[in-house]
């Protein structure tokens, strides 16, 4: 089982669209996939038409009073389940803080799901908090969407410094460009500059496109209502690039 967290300190960078579309493509490739919507806004749950409600809320979930497996919902797609968000997730930091070894809690909760899922995607809320640290402990890959702007560069640098400082043993940072509008000169220039400075940024570029925005109207992953589009091609390419990381010999699912 591999855990991929879609994470950024910044909001509005395309995390949820990435999480929903990657989870959909992963399931379509035959991997038993779970998407955990950790963001109290519940956008991932909304895209899958699943009520953002968890019995007992975040507290019972984190304290282990409820089995994670009992809270999971099947999506409309084969091989893809969703652990929906709950508005109480806004207080997860407080719940975690009250536990012993709070940063290892998420890892412990996810461990029993190893026999059931090949890949788990975590759609994380934007912040850097105790919950983020718990995500970094649990995840194998940290997929970080970057809008090619100066501010994104700053947040990426902040994140790299934080990860180096905390030294998360197995976590692999995988940044990629998201919501790129090539008509904007600043985006094109930043794309070139950032790629040169950070060669580890993935080659795939997710465009800023109206068909991705339509996901909110359709309440479906992109591939479920579009058979062919540049955006879908981009998500497919992104999934293949990520899969090549997942399927390296030491990482194989």
């Amino acid at each position, binding site marked *: 089982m591999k855990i991929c967290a879609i994470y950024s300190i910044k909001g509005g960078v395309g995390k949820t669209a990435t999480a929903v579309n990657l989870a959909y493509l992963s399931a*379509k490739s*035959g991997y*038993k996939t779970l998407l955990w919507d950790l963001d109290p806004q519940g956008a991932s749950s909304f895209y*899958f*038409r*699943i*009520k953002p409600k968890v019995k007992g809320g975040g507290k019972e979930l984190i304290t282990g009073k409820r089995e994670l497996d009992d*809270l*999971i*919902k*099947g999506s*409309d797609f*084969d*091989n*893809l*389940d969703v652990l929906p968000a709950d508005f109480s997730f806004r207080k997860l930091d407080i719940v975690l803080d009250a536990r012993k070894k709070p940063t290892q809690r998420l890892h412990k909760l996810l461990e029993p799901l190893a026999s059931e899922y*090949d890949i788990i995607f975590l759609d994380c809320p934007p912040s850097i908090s105790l919950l983020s640290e718990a995500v970094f402990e649990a995840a194998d890959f940290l997929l970080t969407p970057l809008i090619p702007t100066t501010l994104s560069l700053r947040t990426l640098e902040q994140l790299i410094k934080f990860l180096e400082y905390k030294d998360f043993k197995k976590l692999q940072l995988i940044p990629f460009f998201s919501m790129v509008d090539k008509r904007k000169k600043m985006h094109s220039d930043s794309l070139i500059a950032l790629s040169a400075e950070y060669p580890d940024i993935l080659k795939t570029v997710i465009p800023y496109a109206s068909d991705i925005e339509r996901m909110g109207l359709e*309440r479906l992953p992109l591939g479920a209502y579009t058979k062919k589009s540049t955006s879908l091609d981009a998500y497919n390419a992104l999934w293949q690039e990520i899969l090549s990381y997942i399927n390296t010999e030491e990482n194989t*699912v």
Partner: protein
Amino acid sequence: MRTTALTFELPSTLSPEQFVSHTTTHLNLQITNHYAATKSFYDSFDWRLYHAGMFCEFNQSEQHAELSLQNLAHPQVLMSMEIAQVPRFAHDFTRHDFRQQLELLLDMRALLKVATLDYQQTQLNVLNSDQKTILRLHLDCFPQLPARVTVQLIKGYDKSVLPIINFLQDELRLTPSTQALLLEVLKIQDKTAGTYSSKLNVRLDPDMHADIACKYIYSHLLNAMLLNQQGCIEQIDTEFLHDFRVAVRRTRAGFSQIKQVLPQNSLNHFAEFFSWLGQITGPVRDIDVYLLNFQEFKKSLPVSIREDINPLRDYLYAKQQIAYQQLAKQLQSTRYTKTIKEWESFLREPSPKKPLETFAKLPIKQLADQRIWKVYKRLLKEAQAIDKNSSATSLHELRKTAKKLRYLMEFFQQLYPEMDIKNLLKSLKALQEVLGDFQDLDVQEQTLKQISIELKDQGAAVETFLAMGVLIQVLDQRKHKARHAFAHSFEQFAQPKNKHLFKDLFASSK
């Protein structure tokens, strides 16, 4: 994720159209698909999935192709995947859950189509107020069988299931399917599952005349050859040739071990033919065994040189193709087809009332006792003569004797108490395995040396020879291990409990 599925049958009073109409009126339904499709059922030639209580179903239409592994006893989809065509071998599956499960069940056997059925499918999604699917209904209409509705549950929406199931059962009078569709299909197509087995189990009467009993046994073996010959010609998987060869070897063991029962001049003619079959199939089987063990051989090498051995695999694959082509020609040759027919006719001929052969009219149980007892005594004598200085040849001779004993015991196993003969066969098999390992490793070591000469002529890389050298060393170490294991395994075989049992079962007619 696909979870448990329940299957129901439509009553004869309810047409599929009426079913759709009634459900649409009562439930928030979305009809997502309606199409013509074909169901193909897959298993190995020897029904390994069936024996494990499962089967593979491949549903194919213009829009969709899906393979599922299902439970046989109570209709349930265990796993499913979209796939354009069914891979032949478990290791060809890209989805690891399928690969893992099927490798366990099928091992080296190919997946073959065992039945097909055309049908019409309608998929109906039951939706909630968010237009989220909370349950799926698959309505399958077949030409000769009652239509079936499969209720596919969606995880986390269990509460919605019961009212719908109640509606299907109470209002529409649907009844739960009790039998897997495969079994129904086989029934209407006059086929039977699980019919083939490579195990020999011939029903014999203890008082049956030896000549009739022998012909009966040989007929079983001939049948095994005929069932497997096409699979050898088409090179479907390695086990067709394996089972074909076992039938040939058993027949030859019968010729050498049961004499003075059938006319010797006829048997001499056929013995030559079966010896030829042994010769033409042997080299092909040797390559098969190498390739079947290749991954394991590779793993025994240090990681740094594992990939260097790959040219050996490629060379063996190429050799295997040529060898199978040659074998296919021989199995379609006049010599083969003509002699097989002659053998078949010979076995069908009624036995003479006053035969010249001394033991022809002996009750088969008496002959079986005598032969098994004699070969058993010979085995003990040969084994007791083996010490740590004995040559590989003497161990090879002992292996041959053990094999003859095993075949005789298998031919006549129905004449003896089931548990007793099974326990003795198990014990003998354990001894044979040690002897077989030793012999196989010895041959493999020699063959590798021979292949290295052939590869040298082809200009293979130095790294490949180095890796082969290490492999020879590994094989040699294993061979010595097997050699050391002999004493213990013979001790186990010759333990007093077994000795007494051999005596009780077989020494009575001495």
